[in-house]
Structure formats: C-alpha cells, structure tokens
C-alpha cells in the first residue's frame, strides 16, 4: 500500500496535477508519524510513510491548505472522507483546490494501546498474520493486531470513501452493524447515579488541553466560544466540576449533526477520556428519533438538529426511557 501511495503522490507532483501533497511524515520511531505537506518527489521518497499508524484524519488540514494558492493532493481514508464532505457542506474546504485520493483502510493502530498491552520500549514493528511483532529494547514482543486497533476501527462504521477523485484499492461498503452504539447502550442501561459516577470519573480527569477540539474537523470555528472572552463562557481551564461538564456537553452539542464520528477526539485525548461516547449519544438519539443520518455521507441532507418535522417526538420522550431513577 505504501509503495502505491508514494508512487501516486510522486506522479501527481511530477505531472503537475498538484503542487503539494498532504501526507504522513516519518518520525523518530515507527509510530510517531506527523501530518505534513510534501512539495517534491524527493521529500516523498525520503519521508512519506503510510502504515497502520497513519491514523490522523487529514481532512481538517485541507481547510487551511485549500486556502493557499495551487492545488494540494490528500490521501483520504474512508472515515476521513466523511469529514471531508461535511467540511465541504460547511463551505470550509475549497474542493477545486484539492485532489483527493481515496485509500482503502483495514483499520489503524494506536501506540497507546500497544503500551497498554504492556509492551515497553518498542523500536520497530512488523505484521505477521493477525499479529503485530514489536522489537523493543527488552527483546521481541508480539500482540494481536486487533488489540492495537483504534476504537473507531474496531467499530468501523464504513469502509467507503464518499468523495474522491481517484481511489487506491477497492472502495468498501458502509457497515451499519458495526456495533458502535453498544457502549452507549451499556451506559444508557445504567442508573443515573452510575452514569453520573462514570462521567465524573472520566471528565474530572480532563486537563482542558483542547486537543479534542483542535483536532476535530467539526470544530473549525474561527474562534471557539470557549476562547472568546466576549462569549460569557470562555474558560482557559476547567476551574470547577461544572466547567468540566459544561465544556464537553456544549462541545458535543455544537458538533451534533455535524460530527461524522471520526473518533479523532478520543484518539488524541491524553487522558484517554472516551469522548466519542458523548458524540455517539447525540448520533444515536438523532438516528432513533429523527431517522438515520450520517454526517458527511452526502452533500445535501440537512443535519437533523437543523431540521424538523411537524410530528417530532416531544422532549418528554426522555422521561419515558433510559435507566431507572
């Protein structure tokens, strides 16, 4: 895969289709790939990497990249492509300034999960069958690849690239039975006390680094309400339990109907807070109450929160369901 992608990247540059290529750049280790802009075939030869650690969603970078002169190529995984479409719907990406190469994806790994599996000091990786074989300073270790997969990949909602100029690999299908709402359902089945305890144990660890927000393709505001001193709710740190809750509730609300469930928020959280469970709650509720909706799946459909029908459920529907008191 990497070889094909690199070849394509070089080809696009060489034949002048694009002026720049957005991709993943090699780091110090096998896993610390950084999104980067490549401008020459030589740079691509030297530093371009596509591997199971190319998890970063590239679509948000296109906001800035497509404002620049010339054309940029981007390699877009299925889940990234939903963000790409959603951002176009929001007029944030100039599609004419980018060339999208869709790439099939079998799931991305996360180094945090490798470390969680007890593997320390990893310096190199290879794949053997369904396993990751890791060279470490403490000798060779191996683990099942599925244990290192990002949560969003374990419950991959779609392997279909929804917007592209060309495709590398075969385009996949949507996967409605991915079980991505299982965890939400588990929480819904709890009592409110249990749910409250669960979320406090999670959100109280938030350090308000804003990584979730800044990585989020839906959070593309010029200035976030939480950074705007005139908004009345600006906060640089969560100075109380309330502010911890408030930030995450309002953030989830602001991206509701626009969140494509790309899972970047949970991937980047340094505290491993399962933030996607907040977004998925909104998605699940909207699906159940207003009919299935996938943000970024098409260019036309209005997000349910910006739409209505005259016979929608009343808010009291909330009292009639969920865990016992």
């Amino acid at each position: 895969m990497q070889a094909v992608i690199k070849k394509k990247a070089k080809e696009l540059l060489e034949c002048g289709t694009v002026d720049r290529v957005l991709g993943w750049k090699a780091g110090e280790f096998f896993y610390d790939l950084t999104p980067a802009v490549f401008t020459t075939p030589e740079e691509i030869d030297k530093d371009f990497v596509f591997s199971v650690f190319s998890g970063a969603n590239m679509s948000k970078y296109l906001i800035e990249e497509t404002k620049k002169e010339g054309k940029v190529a981007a390699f877009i995984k299925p889940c990234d492509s939903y963000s790409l479409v959603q951002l176009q719907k929001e007029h944030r990406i100039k599609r004419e300034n980018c060339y999208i190469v869709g790439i099939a994806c079998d799931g991305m790994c996360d180094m945090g999960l490798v470390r969680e599996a007890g593997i320390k000091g990893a310096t190199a990786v290879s794949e053997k069958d369904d396993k990751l074989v890791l060279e470490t300073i403490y000798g060779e270790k191996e683990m099942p690849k599925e244990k290192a997969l990002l949560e969003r990949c374990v419950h991959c909602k779609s392997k279909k690239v929804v917007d592209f100029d060309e495709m590398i690999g075969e385009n996949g299908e949507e996967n409605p039975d991915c079980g991505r709402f299982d965890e939400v359902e588990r929480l819904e089945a709890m009592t409110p006390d249990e749910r409250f305890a669960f979320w406090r144990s999670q959100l109280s660890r938030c350090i308000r680094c804003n990584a979730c927000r800044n990585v989020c393709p839906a959070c593309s505001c010029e200035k976030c309400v939480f950074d705007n001193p005139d908004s009345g709710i600006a906060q640089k740190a969560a100075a109380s339990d309330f502010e911890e809750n408030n930030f995450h509730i309002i953030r989830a609300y602001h991206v509701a109907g626009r969140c494509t469930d790309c899972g970047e928020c949970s991937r980047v959280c340094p505290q491993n807070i399962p933030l996607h469970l907040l977004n998925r709650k909104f998605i699940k509720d909207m699906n159940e109450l207003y009919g299935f909706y996938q943000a970024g799946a098409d260019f036309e459909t209005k997000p349910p929160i910006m739409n209505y029908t005259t016979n929608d459920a009343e808010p009291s529907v909330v009292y009639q369901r969920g865990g016992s008191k």
Partner: protein
Amino acid sequence: MKKIAKAKIDDLFKAISEKEVLYLPVDDAQGQAAFIPWKEGLKMSGDLNTVRSAKDLFFPQVESLVNFKMDGKKLEIIDAKRENDPFVIFGVRPCDAKSFEILDKVFYYSEPVDSFYIARRDKSTVVVLACNEPEETCFCQAFGIDQAEAAGGDVSAWEDGENFYFKAVTEKGEALLEGLPLEDAEDGAADDIKKAAKAVMEKLPLRDLDLSKFGAGKTQELFDDPAWAKLSESCLGCGTCTFVCPTCQCFDIKDFDGGKQIRRFRCWDSCMYSDFTQMSAGQPRPTQKERFRQRFMHKLVYYPDMHEGMFSCVGCGRCLRKCPIHMNIVKVIKTIGEEK
C-alpha cells in the same frame, strides 16, 4: 540504606499516610497513572511515568489567588491563600525530580517569588524512584539525568522484584524515613539494580541526542530558522504538550464572577494557544509558527539564557507520547539549526 519487602509496601504507605498526605502514582479510570492521595486498597501503578507530571502538586492547574465579595456597591477583599498540610510524593522519577529544580529557579528563587508555589514546595517531601525499565521515548540522559540514580529528591529509592530500597538525601528525607516500618539494608544494596538500569540506558535510541546547537545565546542563530514554519505546519495548537510537560510554567490570571463572590485565580496557560499573551493591541505571535517557536526557544534558549545555561526540558518523553500529531521537542532539536 533502608529497605522494605514489596509484599509489605502497604504497611509503609499506611505509616506514611498516617503522618502526612501521601501522593502515589495510581492507575486511573482509564488505566493511566496519576498522582493520587493514597488510601487503603490503592496500588502503585506499573507505568513508567504518570501522564501528568508531578509539577501539578506544587503548581496546580487552577489556583485561587484572591476573592472579592460584593455587597451592593461595596467591595470586600478576601485572601484565598490556605495553609498547606505537609505531604509526601512517592515514586517521582528522576526526570520529574529534575523538573522541580527548573521550576524552583522561576518560582522559588527568582524575584518576585511565588508564595503559593513556595508554600507547597516547603511542605513537600519527595521520594525519587529510579527507573528500571526506561522506554524508547526517554531522553533524559541528554540533560545529564541518570535514570539509575534517583537523585533530586529528599529520599532516593530503588526497586527490584523483591524489595524497595531507600536512602535519605536531605534532612526532610531523613525525617520521613524515621519511624517508618523499614528494615536496614547495606549501602550497596541497590548497586545491582543500578547496573541493570544502566545497561538498558545504553540501549535507548535517543540516548545521544545532540543539544550542542542550543543553549544560552543562540537566539540570533535559531530564531529565523526556516525550519520553524515546516515543523509547526501540522501543529493543532492544542495545549497537550504544555499541560503534560513537567517544566512548562506559564499561567494566566482570570476572574470568575460567581454572583456571591468574585474569584481571581490563575490557571495554566499554553504558548500554543492562539490567545497566549494576547494584548489589546493584538497578538504578538500571530500564527502557530511563532507560538510553536516560542515553546521550544523558551525551553532550549531563553531559559538557558536566564538560568546559567540550564535547559528547561528533562527528557521525560511525555510530549513524545501524547502529542496528537506526534510533533515534539526531539524532532525540533534534530531539525532546527541543521540547514545553514
């Protein structure tokens, strides 16, 4: 030197916590280590290091400075400073221990001193635990830190499969060990542990990180390096690196009007934020390139300028692990100053 069998470690924690609050690295709800006050049943984390550094205990993310009370048009000022109880931090790694020295230079020894920081620092006893299993992200050796030597605290500690070994380094350390349920051990009891650790340290990939391009007086050479633009282009502008960093020390002062009282508090700030040092005249560092540069120039040049060449980084590797896009100080050190 003293020791205690690992099987009995809870007795030790209990004994300490009877005297003082004991902070211990414990796995949190998501299995990541954090310093948490010990209580019966809590187990020490097996992770090499905590996600957030130990600086939180001296320089918390949010801290009240002063409160105001309004009664109609009258204003009353209330001192928000509280007397701190003495506390023990157990299991600080040598890198974090070194970070206290860096913070001390700013908050403890430089005028104006930070009385809030000093109040906490004075009440603390730090037990530094050597690293047996350093990881690929560790580059503390580049800053002269020896992971096998548990220096920089009040008590140095080592562990092996069986025991913890302790050696008091300061008077505070001696006072702590006094009266704890510890056995005596011979002076060289930890030598084998150190030897094993040193052997691992030899294998660390970032062991020989070259810092010669950086240090006091390098502003002119490095400030306009074209590589800053390239390095910073993918930076998200989040505060993860600064908030997990043991040496980042910037804060902002904010007011909160809660209706009954107005609280003036300080909270961590991040030079990566777009409103960092925002002034009414505008933003002195208008793009992420300038903000990104500020962070690393501060650690590698400005701080050494002000503090006898000492770097404001301890090589703990937290930013290497946690940056959402894997940009970090090691990449900066290796890239900046290369093209001449």
